[in-house]
């Protein structure tokens, strides 16, 4: 009996600890990203100082120092981008709105980019000159367009996942509304029943508008192929605005649900 009581009182505490650790993973990843960003800023400053000294004196000592600082900077750059992608990965893990297929698609993008960064970081120890450092850096620069495009697609996916969670909740509430009207609608006069059905129609229409908007964003994001960085930012801004419009459709549908509540509450 005492054993069962012990299990009964310790299990909730254990469960809460597990749940708390899961929810805090993205927060921990974000804190690590912020730390790496701070380290990157410091190492970039050190690199700039060493580079300026090398360009001023062109001595062997300054060249050696500049090369060392450059290698440290390149390694930290890869580490920073990797930590950022891990934050996005944890956000996707916590998402409850995306389908498994969609989530797998975005996490594949993350995995591909992390693999590239790890391979790129493996080249750094073999750098023996300033020219070698420049070539290794150019590899990341040439891959930057693909990396930034993937990041924007993942960010759109994170937003769509949050909207999908609300959409699921919206569908559940809509189902309960339809059940209520079907079960208790006959107690109202005919005119009132027509009003109730009209509210249901409005709520359903908003849901359809939301879905159309989400489908358009999802398709456009999957086919994202920008010409340059400005084009990428412009397209990304359009996606976020579309997500805001989709949220507005849900908000309007929820307001119609409030009207339905009022209509059901009173006889007249």
């Amino acid at each position, binding site marked *: 009996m005492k054993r069962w009581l012990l299990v009964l009182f310790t299990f909730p505490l254990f469960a809460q600890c597990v749940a708390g650790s899961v929810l805090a993973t993205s927060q921990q990843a*974000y804190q690590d990203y912020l730390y790496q*960003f701070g380290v*990157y800023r410091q190492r*970039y400053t050190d690199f700039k100082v060493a*580079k300026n000294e090398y360009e001023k004196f062109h001595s062997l000592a300054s060249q050696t120092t500049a090369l060392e600082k*450059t290698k440290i900077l390149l390694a930290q*750059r890869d580490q*920073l*981008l990797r930590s*950022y992608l891990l*934050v*996005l990965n944890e*956000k996707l893990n916590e998402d409850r709105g995306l389908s498994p297929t969609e989530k797998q698609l975005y996490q594949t993008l993350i995995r591909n980019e992390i693999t590239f960064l790890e391979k790129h970081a493996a080249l750094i120890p073999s750098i023996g000159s*300033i*020219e070698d*450092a*420049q070539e290794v*850096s150019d590899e*990341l*620069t040439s891959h*930057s367009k693909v990396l*930034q495009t993937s*990041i924007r697609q993942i*960010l759109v996916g*994170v*937003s769509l996942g*949050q*909207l999908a969670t*609300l959409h699921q*909740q*919206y569908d*559940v*509430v809509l189902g*309960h*509304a339809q*059940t*209520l009207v079907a*079960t*208790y609608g006959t*107690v*109202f006069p005919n005119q009132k029943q027509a009003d109730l059905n009209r509210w249901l129609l409005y709520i359903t229409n908003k849901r359809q508008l939301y879905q159309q908007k989400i489908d358009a964003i999802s398709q456009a994001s999957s086919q994202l192929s920008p010409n340059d960085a400005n084009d990428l930012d412009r397209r990304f801004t359009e996606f*976020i605005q579309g*997500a*805001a419009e*989709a*949220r507005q459709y*849900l*908000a309007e549908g*929820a*307001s119609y*649900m*409030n009207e*339905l*509540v009022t209509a*059901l*509450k*009173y*006889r*007249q």
Partner: protein
Amino acid sequence: MEDQYPPPSSQFIPQQGQGTPNIPPQPPMGTPPMYHPPPFIDQYKVPLTIGGIILIISLMTIVVAGMTKPKAPLARPIAATTPTPTPTPVREFSAVASQSAFLDFTQEVASLSSSIQNLNVYDSALAPPVLNLELGFR
């Protein structure tokens, strides 16, 4: 014509050896005396009388009219009246209002509305880091 002007009295004729009395100059014999116009008031006595009467009557008319003029009513303070609120029509609850399914539905709608309002479609904290990829050694 000589009868119109009586002859001067001898007492006014200065005698030789006597002081000359202070007598006004007499018009020469045979000339008519000078015409002295009457004073202004005597000259316009009648018009002035008529004008004065009219003025007095006008003044009396003005005074009487002022006394009998209806006075403007005093501005009385208007008591502020509180507007009577329109009575809210009492709405009768339906048979659904007491059902547990309806009460649960009400809470679900409130929760959904709150979740939608609190959603931020894009978390700016997730913005990618802006890095300067150029080393600049060339």
